[in-house]
């Protein structure tokens, strides 16, 4: 589904030099979690997929097509995007936030409303009850769910999530994790999720990629990390991040 090839380290200087050593592939329908310390380049890597950041070297391909050759706006409408705290527009109602892209795509109002209703139901919210409210009137967990619903509006091929659950309290986070897993079964969209929480990565990701200083250190499932850590860094990272 997504191929990232960054095989040739950039010589020096550039902002993205840290990403010189990442090369990975995200499979169709898979949820890949990118994890690493801050400054490891996980967010930067994710943003090269929807071209919020342009890589200095290497290529990102979606279904074999180089993203550099695509119009960035069209590309991004094919890719859902969720950021921390949801990134909802405070001056739009919940319904308007979720339906924004449909509206920009020129859908008729009735179709937009039906889609918004469906999307809100998907994240356990009710159009009649929540649709007319503003983001400021919702709890953090609710806002996050709306953010997820909004990212699904145009039936994207890929969803990018940038520490989506980072700002939630542990109980809400646990609850929303379960919803995420259920949703994953339902929509089966290819997902790249950035997190700094190892437990979250293992729980939500089909596979996990651990990055450090712009290099891919290990890519695998939970068992690979636990039983066959690639090096000492992985071992100590696991220790400190699973029991913290």
């Amino acid at each position, binding site marked *: 589904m997504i191929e990232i090839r960054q095989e040739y380290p950039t010589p020096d200087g550039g902002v993205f030099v840290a990403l010189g050593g990442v090369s990975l592939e995200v499979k169709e329908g898979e949820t890949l979690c990118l994890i690493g310390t801050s400054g490891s380049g996980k967010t930067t890597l994710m943003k090269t997929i929807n071209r919020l950041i342009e890589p200095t070297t290497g290529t990102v391909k979606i279904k074999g097509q180089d993203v550099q050759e695509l119009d960035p706006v069209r590309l991004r409408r094919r890719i859902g995007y969720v950021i921390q705290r949801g990134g909802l527009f405070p*001056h739009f109602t919940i319904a308007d936030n979720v339906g*924004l892209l449909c509206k*920009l795509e020129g859908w008729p109002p009735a179709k937009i409303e039906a889609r918004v209703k469906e999307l809100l139901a998907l994240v356990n919210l009710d159009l009649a009850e929540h649709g007319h409210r*503003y983001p400021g009137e919702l709890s953090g967990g609710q806002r996050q769910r709306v953010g997820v619903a909004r990212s699904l509006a145009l039936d994207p091929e890929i969803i990018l999530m940038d520490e989506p659950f980072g700002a939630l309290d542990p109980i809400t986070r646990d609850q929303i994790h379960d919803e995420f897993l259920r949703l994953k079964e339902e929509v089966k969209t290819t997902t790249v999720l950035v997190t700094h929480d190892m437990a979250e990565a293992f729980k939500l990701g089909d596979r996990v990629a651990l990055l450090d200083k712009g290099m891919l250190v290990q890519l695998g499932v939970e068992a690979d990390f636990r039983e066959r850590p690639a090096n000492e860094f992985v071992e100590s990272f696991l220790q400190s991040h699973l029991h913290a």
Partner: protein
Amino acid sequence: MKFQHLLLAILLIGAPHLAAQDEVEPPVVIGSKVFTESRLLGEIMAQLIEAKTEIPVERRFGLSGTKICFDALKTGEIDLYPEYTGTGLVTMLHEEPITDPLVTFVRVRREFLVRFDLEWLGPFGFNNTYAMAMSDAKAEELGIESISDLAAHSDTLRYGVSHEFLNRTDGWPGLVETYGLEGAEVRGMEHGLAYAAIQSDEIDLVDAYSTDGKLLRYKLRVLEDDQQYFPMYHAAPLIRVETLKRYPELRPLLEQLALRLPDARMQRLNYEVEEEKRPFAGVAREFLQKEGLIEGAAKPKAQRAPSARKQGFLTLFRSRWSQTLELTWQHLQLTLLAVLIAIVVSVPLAILCTRVPVLSMPVLGCAGVIQTIPSLALLAFMIPIPGLGLGWRSAVVALFLYAVLPIVRNTYTGICEVDPDLVEAAKGMGLTNGQILRLVQLPIATRTIMAGIRTSTVISVGVATLAAFIGAGGLGEPILTGLQLNDSYLILCGALPAAALAVLVDLLLWILERVLVPNGLQLSK
């Protein structure tokens, strides 16, 4: 295209009372300076023309300072106004003063014809030269009779002189040199206020015009100009040659006024207006009738005269009610037109600055520099610009320039302050730059932008009171006249409505802001 239409529409809406230019027969526009004597002479000439010809007359009285009148005359904004020969010689021709009145007159008449295509008609007769005046009591106490006597007291006496006098070649600098007044304490102040200041013993000496009616009222002694420093200031109509060609009947008509007003007569007329609080129009009419220049009761149009003496503020205010409404409406038009143009220009400019960051420093810097130019100076700069001239256009442009900074700055700041995460979320969702601006940045910045617009509007309401100095009307008119006549009630007749207007406009904009700021943003975060 759309933008041009909008601008045109704004200009048309803003200017109905001013746009009605006569196409058939252009009126003779008579100007005057701000002080009483100049207005009276203007009014006398206006009434004479109205009574004896069919030519329409337009009055543009109360223009501040020589430069504004002279520029307006040269550009044809006005056709004639009363000027003083000494001013013509020294201020306009930049020549040395001449003490012989006839030589002075012949000199300016020839030079003005050749150089400016302007003609001096027969002088009215009086010599209103500058004079130094001090209170009789104080002069007695110190034994001062002539200006020469001042030198001995130059470190204790306090001078309050008009700004024009302070800077004229034939004013303060030359006076200091001629009479050895170096080191004297001098302040520039509004002429009308200087008399009040001398009354309350804040200053000792003022510059005065020798025909000033106030000299009688305040018991001031005119000091003898024993070195014959002050040049001759014979007042005469200064008129465009072009106007004389179009209306040849004006020359013989205005020549009838020549030598009708000796010093004492002029001082008396000034006194009637300033001290007896009689309206300009009435004093002018009575004079013309007594001289047999007009018959019976000629009815002048459009009087803007202060009303009878000794009435209370409320009576005065009530009697001026419809006039006040008209002036308020003019004031509002000037202000709103300027602010609307400022919005149309500033908001896109600020958006451009957020997109091209290198522009932000120079743009905000320029707007800031404009803000530091004193308002009256900015107004005066506008007059010689072709197409602006005297009146509302210059006022609107000057107000517009003042209104730019708060709107540009607030729009720029408002957009920059939008949470960068939101902008990135919008971009990541696949919104175009235009959509991000329209759907995210501008709505969220509404409150900040509106605050800028409110600031601009309130500033403009205030600065617009100065528009009267260049004949643009508005609530500055009664303030200006009140300052000249030292009439606080009349000043209040302009100042109170202006203040009320500022408060009202701010309130309306606050309500508009409540409507415009998106609902979701009115919640606490």
